[in-house]
C-alpha cells in the first residue's frame, strides 16, 4: 500500500487542536497520523514553509449542472475547488430542474465521481421545484445523500413552510440553510440601499430585507427546535441577531463570504457588474461587524457562494446583469489578505471555519486529519504573492471583481482520498 509522507509542514488541524511543524502520513486513502511513524515511505512531498491542513470545505457553491452548463459543470466546479485548496463542496439545489428529488441528488454524486476530483455533496430543495409551495420529498433526498436543505437563492417566503421544513428536517438531523431576503423589499434592487445607491440612482436592497427574515427564521428555530444555518450574512444587524440567538442557546450557525468582509458598496461606483451579488456589498460598518463576528465565533463558517455566470450574461448594464460572483479560486487569498494578514484571525481559526465547523454543520466525516479518516488534505503556501487572473481560472466562468489584484496565499496541492488531485 502506498505510504505518503508530507514532510516538515506546519500541520494545522483545529479538530484535534493541532498546530505544529511535523510530518503528516497517509496510508492508501486514509490518514495514518502525524509525527514519526515506523513505516516505509513510498512517496514524499516536501511541505517546508507550507501549511498542511484538512482539505477545505466550502459549504455554499452553485455548480449549475444540470441545466446551465454554459456557466459551470460539476467537473469544472470541482476542478476550481481543488485549485483553491477546497476538497469538499456542498452544491446548492438551484440547478434546472431543481434538485428536489432522490434521483437528482444521486446524479450529483454520479457526476462528481465521473469527474474524480473534489467531493461534492448535494443540498436538497426545501420545496418542490423550489416554488415555495409544498415540501419536497426530503426523506428521499436524504436517502439520495442530501446533507442539508434550502431553496437556494429563492427565499422561502412563507413562514409556515419554513416552520414545517425546520420541524420535518429534525427527523433526519439535517440543517435548513436560510437565504435571508424579503423579496418585496428587494424587488428591482441592484445594490445595497444607502448613500451609494442614492448617488448612482440604483434601486437598493435594504439591510432590513435581510434582517427581517433572519429574525423570523431565528424565531422559527426557537419554535421548532430545528437546526438553522444562516447563509451569507452581510449586515451588522444580522450579525447582532445571530449573536443574541446563540446566547439564547438556539441551534443556529452562520456563514460569511469573503466579498462581504473585503469589499463595500463603494465598489459599485465603477458600474462593474462583477461587484453585483445577492446579498449585496454593504458598508464599511457592516464589514467591521462581520470581521468582529468572525473573531468572536458568531460566524462559524466562511463560504464562497461561488455563483458562476457566463460572460455574455454577466457583462452588461448593471441593473440588468444577474447577481453572482465566482469564489472557489479566490476564497483563500482574499481571506489571507482580509483576515489573516491584518491579524483578525490566526491560521488555525481560519482553517477551523473551513474544515471542522462546516463538517459539523453538514454532518459529514471530513475536515480533520484524525487517523483513519479519508485523506483530504490541502497544502498551502501562506506567503507566496501572486496576481489573480480570471482568464486562468479552472472554473468555466470569469465573473470575479478580483482580476489584477495582488494577493498572498495559494494552494500548492490538494489531495482527495490520499490521491494528489491538484498540484502546482
Amino acid at each position, binding site marked *: 500500500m502506498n505510504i505518503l509522507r508530507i514532510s516538515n509542514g506546519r500541520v494545522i488541524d483545529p479538530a484535534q487542536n493541532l498546530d505544529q511543524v511535523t510530518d503528516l502520513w497517509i496510508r492508501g486513502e486514509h490518514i495514518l497520523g502525524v509525527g514519526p511513524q515506523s513505516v516505509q515511505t513510498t512517496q514524499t512531498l516536501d511541505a517546508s514553509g507550507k501549511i498542511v491542513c484538512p482539505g477545505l470545505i466550502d459549504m455554499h457553491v452553485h455548480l449549475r449542472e444540470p441545466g446551465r452548463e454554459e456557466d459551470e459543470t460539476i467537473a469544472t466546479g470541482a476542478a476550481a475547488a481543488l485549485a483553491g485548496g477546497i476538497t469538499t463542496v456542498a452544491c446548492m439545489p438551484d440547478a434546472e430542474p431543481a434538485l428536489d428529488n432522490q434521483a437528482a441528488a444521486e446524479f450529483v454524486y454520479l457526476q462528481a465521481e465521473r469527474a474524480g476530483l473534489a467531493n461534492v455533496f448535494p443540498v436538497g430543495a426545501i420545496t418542490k421545484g423550489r416554488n415555495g409551495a409544498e415540501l419536497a420529498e426530503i426523506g428521499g433526498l436524504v436517502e439520495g445523500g442530501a446533507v442539508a436543505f434550502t431553496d437556494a437563492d429563492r427565499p422561502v417566503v412563507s413562514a409556515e413552510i419554513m416552520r414545517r421544513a425546520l420541524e420535518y428536517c429534525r427527523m433526519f438531523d439535517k440543517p435548513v440553510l436560510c437565504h435571508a431576503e424579503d423579496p418585496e423589499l428587494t424587488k428591482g434592487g441592484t445594490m445595497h440601499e444607502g448613500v451609494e445607491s*442614492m*448617488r448612482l*440612482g440604483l434601486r437598493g436592497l435594504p439591510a432590513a430585507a435581510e434582517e427581517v427574515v433572519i429574525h423570523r427564521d431565528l424565531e422559527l428555530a426557537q419554535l421548532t427546535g430545528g437546526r438553522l444555518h444562516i447563509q451569507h450574512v452581510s449586515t451588522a444587524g444580522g450579525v447582532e441577531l445571530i449573536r443574541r440567538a446563540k446566547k439564547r442557546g438556539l441551534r443556529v450557525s452562520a456563514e460569511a463570504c469573503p466579498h462581504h468582509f473585503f469589499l463595500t458598496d463603494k465598489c459599485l461606483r465603477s458600474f462593474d457588474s462583477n461587484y453585483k451579488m445577492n446579498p449585496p456589498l454593504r458598508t464599511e460598518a457592516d464589514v467591521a461587524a462581520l470581521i468582529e463576528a468572525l473573531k468572536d465565533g458568531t460566524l462559524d463558517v466562511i463560504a464562497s457562494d461561488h455563483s458562476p455566470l457566463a460572460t455574455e450574461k454577466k457583462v*452588461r*448594464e448593471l*441593473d440588468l446583469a444577474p447577481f453572482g460572483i465566482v469564489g472557489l479560486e479566490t476564497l483563500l487569498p482574499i481571506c489571507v489578505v482580509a483576515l489573516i494578514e491584518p491579524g483578525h484571525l490566526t491560521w488555525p481559526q481560519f482553517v477551523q471555519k473551513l474544515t471542522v465547523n462546516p463538517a459539523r454543520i453538514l454532518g459529514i466525516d471530513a475536515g480533520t486529519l484524525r487517523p483513519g479518516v479519508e485523506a483530504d488534505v490541502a497544502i498551502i503556501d501562506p506567503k507566496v504573492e501572486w496576481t489573480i487572473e480570471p482568464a486562468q481560472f479552472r472554473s468555466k466562468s470569469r465573473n470575479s471583481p478580483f482580476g489584477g489584484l495582488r494577493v498572498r496565499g495559494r494552494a500548492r496541492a490538494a489531495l482527495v482520498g490520499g490521491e494528489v488531485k491538484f498540484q502546482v
Partner: protein
Amino acid sequence: MVSEAAPAATASVPWTRRHLLGLEDLSCDELCTILDTAEQFVVPSQSRRKKRGNLAGKVVVNLFFEPSTRTRTSFGLAARRLSADTLDFTPSSSSLSKGETFIDTAKNIEAMGVDLVVVRHSSSGAPHLLAQHLRCGVINAGDGAHEHPTQGLLDIFTIRQKRGRIEGLTVGLVGDIAHSRVARSNIHGLVKLGAKVIVCGPPTLVPETIRELGVEVSHNLEAILPRCDVINMLRIQFERQRSGLFPSIQEYARLFGLDSTRLAKARKDLLLLAPGPINRGVEITPDVADGPHSAILQQVTNGLAVRMAVLYLLCGQPGEE
C-alpha cells in the same frame, strides 16, 4: 457683438476629457469651462444664425435606448450647427429587438467610423459601460436615475444667465428626487459652484441619504419658497403613484404643486425652471408655467448652446469654418 474667434481662446482651463459621463466627475474649473464655452454659442438673434465648421468631418451618433424628444433633437441640431454628420439610432429600428446586446450594438455603430456617441439609457451606468468598451467619445444624455449632465448644465447656465452668478444663490429642487437624474446632475453642479441646494418632496421620493451630497432636505414647499432664488420643478412620473410612493396625483399637486397662490409667498424675482416635459396642472399650473417667473423655454434655447459647447470641447477643432 459676438466674437467669431475660437471659443477655446476664452475657456477657463484646457479641456482634456474624452467623455462627459456626469457632473459629479467634473471639477469646478471644468464646469466653468463648459459654461463659458456655451456663452460663445448663444445665438443673439435669428439673423446671426449660421453654421460653424468646428465639427466638420466628424460623425456624431444619437444612441437613444429610451424615448426622448427635446434632448435628442437638441443634440442633433447642436451637432449639425457645428457641421458634424449626424445619425439617429432608435432601438425599434435596430437589432436590439433581435437579441443583440447593448454593447454589441454600440460597437457595430462605432465600427462605421463614429467620433462621438450620445447615449441615453434606462440603466444607470450604461454610458460608463460604453466608455469602457468603445474607443470613441461618449456623452451621457441621461442614464437611469443617475445623471443627465447636459440638462444639469443648461439649468445652471440659465440660472447664471438670469442671475449673473451661481455662488450664494439658494436653489430649490422640487419633486421626485429619488428617481431623478436631473436632480443629481443639478445637485453636483450647483453645490460645486457654491449654491445652496434644498431638495423638497415627500419622504418616499426624497431619500434621507441625499444629505450626503451636501443638500438640505425639506418636505414642505411653502416653508422653503421664501428662501429660494430659484425653484426647479421636476416632473412627476405617474407610475410612481401606482407603485405606492404617494397616494394620488391630486394629493401630490396639493402638497408640492406650484400655483399662483403659493407663488405669492415666493420672492418677487423668483426664477422658475422645469426640465420638462411638464404635466400642466400637476407640478405647475399653466398660469405659472407661462408667467413672468418662468424661464422654461429659455432653458430649451440654452440647451442647444450648452450641447454645442460639450460637442465642441470633446471633439471639435478650434477656428471658424
